[in-house]
């Protein structure tokens, strides 16, 4: 029994990690193509058909590059930082439900790596650990730009973590559980008999603040101050070369995928496709449809991330902190109280 669980989990982990890594490869390509489209350029189109293999070529190039550790850097931590970043980025996905249960070889398999009852707490805990990767990278490089980038980044990440945590409180009040699978189940019903009961409609303020905080947590424009090329050269990864730099890059995009998946799960109904249960598909096909729905929703959120990045300018640092502490924090707190009042009136 125990070995069976281990084997099934191992298989799921392998599939999920490989999917994330493949997605990252194509996400980088899509981002570059979209940015080129927005800026009226051509973008990478030479490596492979339509330039699809550009990122693969980049990764191979990074693998063959020299790994330079500056003389003044703290070698052990300099090595450790990218490993923390990528480890954290990949392991967040463990609690996200990719679909409903699926029947394979006469066995009911839940399409989630670990269906723990503290799913949201796990996500918050692990994403907080991501701060260590960036801060340690900035500190251990012993470079002024890196240090400033790392400090700014840690201040930004912890500030927006507050609003992120508070925006989720509303969702928890509506669904009454911390288990992500149950939160998705809760969103499969309908409001007024026709509107899907997605938390996006039940928690509009929470949705907007959560998406904003997710942008800040993934260091994406308009919140990409840790890297701010014109002021900080490269920010916390100035002194990184080769695949150690590549791992930070990979972690950033993996985080973006995870953030999109969390937004989908918490606010956009997760794997559920509205009305599909009335069509009368067999349970196996239905499971596949759910997995497909999840992927499409996540892809749509990621597309939103990319387009925003190439549309908006960057904040100034004081604007960023003001937004986080003076606007987002009060709004999310008031949202908790409002949700409470509405729920009390309804019951």
């Amino acid at each position: 029994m125990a070995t069976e669980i281990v084997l099934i989990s191992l298989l799921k982990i392998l599939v999920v990690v490989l999917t994330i890594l493949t997605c990252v490869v194509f996400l980088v390509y899509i981002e570059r193509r979209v940015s080129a489209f927005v800026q009226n350029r051509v973008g990478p189109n030479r490596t492979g058909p339509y330039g699809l293999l550009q990122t693969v070529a980049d990764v191979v190039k990074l693998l063959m590059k020299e790994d330079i550790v500056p003389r003044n850097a703290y070698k052990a931590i300099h090595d450790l930082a990218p490993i923390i970043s990528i480890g954290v980025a990949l392991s967040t996905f463990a609690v996200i439900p990719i679909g409903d249960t699926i029947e394979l070889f006469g066995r009911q398999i839940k399409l989630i790596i670990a269906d723990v009852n503290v799913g949201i707490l796990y996500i918050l805990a692990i994403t907080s650990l991501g701060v260590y990767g960036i801060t340690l990278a900035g500190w251990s490089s012993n470079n002024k730009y890196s240090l400033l980038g790392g400090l700014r980044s840690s201040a930004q990440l912890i500030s927006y973590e507050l609003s992120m945590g508070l925006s989720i409180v509303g969702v928890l009040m509506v669904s009454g559980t911390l288990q992500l699978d149950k939160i998705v189940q809760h969103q499969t019903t309908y409001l007024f008999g026709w509107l899907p009961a997605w938390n996006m409609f039940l928690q509009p303020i929470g949705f907007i603040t959560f998406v904003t905080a997710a942008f800040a947590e993934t260091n994406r424009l308009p919140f990409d101050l840790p890297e701010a090329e014109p002021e900080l050269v490269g920010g916390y990864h100035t002194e990184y070369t080769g695949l150690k730099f590549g791992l930070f890059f990979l972690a950033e995009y993996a985080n973006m995928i995870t953030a999109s998946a969390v937004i989908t799960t918490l606010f956009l109904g997760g794997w559920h496709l509205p009305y599909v249960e009335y069509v009368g598909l067999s349970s196996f096909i239905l499971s596949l449809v759910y997995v497909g729905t999840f992927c499409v929703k996540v892809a749509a959120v990621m597309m939103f991330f990319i387009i925003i990045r190439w549309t908006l300018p960057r904040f100034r640092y004081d604007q960023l902190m003001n937004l986080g502490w003076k606007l987002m924090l009060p709004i999310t707190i008031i949202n908790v109280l409002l949700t409470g009042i509405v729920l009390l009136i309804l019951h």
Partner: protein
Amino acid sequence: MLEHYLPIFMMILGGVLFGIVMVKLNEWLGPRRPTEEKLTTYESGMEPVRTARERFSVKFYMVAVLFILFDIEVVFMYPWAVAFRELGIIGFVSMTVFILILLIGLFYVWRKGALEWD
């Protein structure tokens, strides 16, 4: 219980292992030709001036301290939010008082200028 958490440990282990393998692979595949200039700290092509081990703005410490305060209070809200329906009106009123104290704290910090960045 353990069977729920075992996959998580495996996932974290897998992520960290992936990182270690990639770093080691890079060290093994990449060339190693260190020179004096290559190993100096990068400062936009200038000679580095002193080190980065210096004092930095107290505001970063301030943000960290405030974060710990507020984050702990957010954590208190989680069990309350999950049990919101069972707690009913009494739970709501107690949490309102708690949140008001939190808001007074935020207002105090705001007035003291700890949130100003200029």
